[in-house]
């Protein structure tokens, strides 16, 4: 299973700033290994962010996103104590969900 994400969510005025670090290889499918064989693409495809169980953001990602990606966004109206849940699914079907509390 994939390594856990690092999620920080902090109130800033009437919104919360969420910062997420994901552990993923994000292989493009363009690179070749030492033997000259193409390394198959392996990257996160879908990202979902939920605020207290309600989906507030979805994203479709491709091979252009960096290894161990960093994502930042704001959630309007989020207060301290609220739950922020981030999920991703990669092109091999592997998935990961982590949760953080807004501080």
């Amino acid at each position, binding site marked *: 299973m994939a*390594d*856990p994400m*690092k999620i920080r969510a902090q109130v800033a005025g009437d919104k919360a700033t969420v*910062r997420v*670090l994901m*552990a993923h290889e994000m292989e493009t499918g363009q690179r070749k290994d030492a033997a000259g064989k193409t390394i198959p693409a392996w990257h996160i495809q879908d990202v979902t962010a939920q605020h207290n169980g309600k989906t507030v953001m979805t994203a479709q990602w491709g091979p252009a996103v960096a*290894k*161990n990606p960093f994502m930042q966004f704001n959630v309007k109206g989020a207060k301290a104590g609220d739950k922020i849940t981030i999920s991703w699914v990669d092109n091999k079907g592997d998935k990961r969900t982590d949760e953080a509390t807004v501080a």
Partner: protein
Amino acid sequence: MKRTWVVCALLVPLAAWAQPKPAPVVVPEYYRLLEDGNPAELFEAKGEALWTQKRGPKSASLEACDLGKGPGVVKGAWVEMPRYFADTKRVQDLESRLLTCMEVLQGFNAAEIAKTPFGRGEQVSIEALAAWISAASRGEKLALPQGHAEERRVYELGKRAFYYRAGPYDFSCASCHGEPGKRIRMQDLPELAKNPGDAVGFASWPAYRVSSGELWTMQRRLNDCFRQQRFPFPGYASDVTVALGVFMGVNAQGAVSSAPAIKR
């Protein structure tokens, strides 16, 4: 004539504004922007879990590992390494000490791990552990002990290695790191024969390399320095690498550690 003057007056401030900022301004700005999402944190989390996890042939954790401040004490250990350890009768850096702990406590074969290429097998565990252990001393000042005669001897050894010129280009560490204001492409090179300041040089490794997506420990950084000098690769956690660590660390005494930092 009068019209020309008006045009000039308008153009001058515009030109000054449009001028790109010089590299010494832009590069640190870029690092500051990256700092907010330093993926080294992912390695720290992994290292923290590895420290308490029962692993290896002896199925033991590393919690009894003495990093110089007593068994299991992690906070503040990084800024006092490399140092002399009475049990091994050697000056050891973090990584050679981790090899000792992994062999004695967990039953791993240290020589085998030392031969493993970076980023593979148990080297991956050491990278994560180094990230977590150095993070526990983030913001603290380098304070390498020099009380033991062996520590002072190894410092002198490191000094010799630092100025030792060899290889097809007659390089030494000092060729690049012996005077201020040197750089390779966009990277400013720290002057390592004296204190280069807070969070630079020895006080900024291990670090996450954005360009390769890898966490580089001090051993890996030194290994690459040897490569750039066209020297034969040094043995992992070998005496010369530890000695260079002592030399850089003692020179930078008092500098604030930012490890694990983020680099290009």
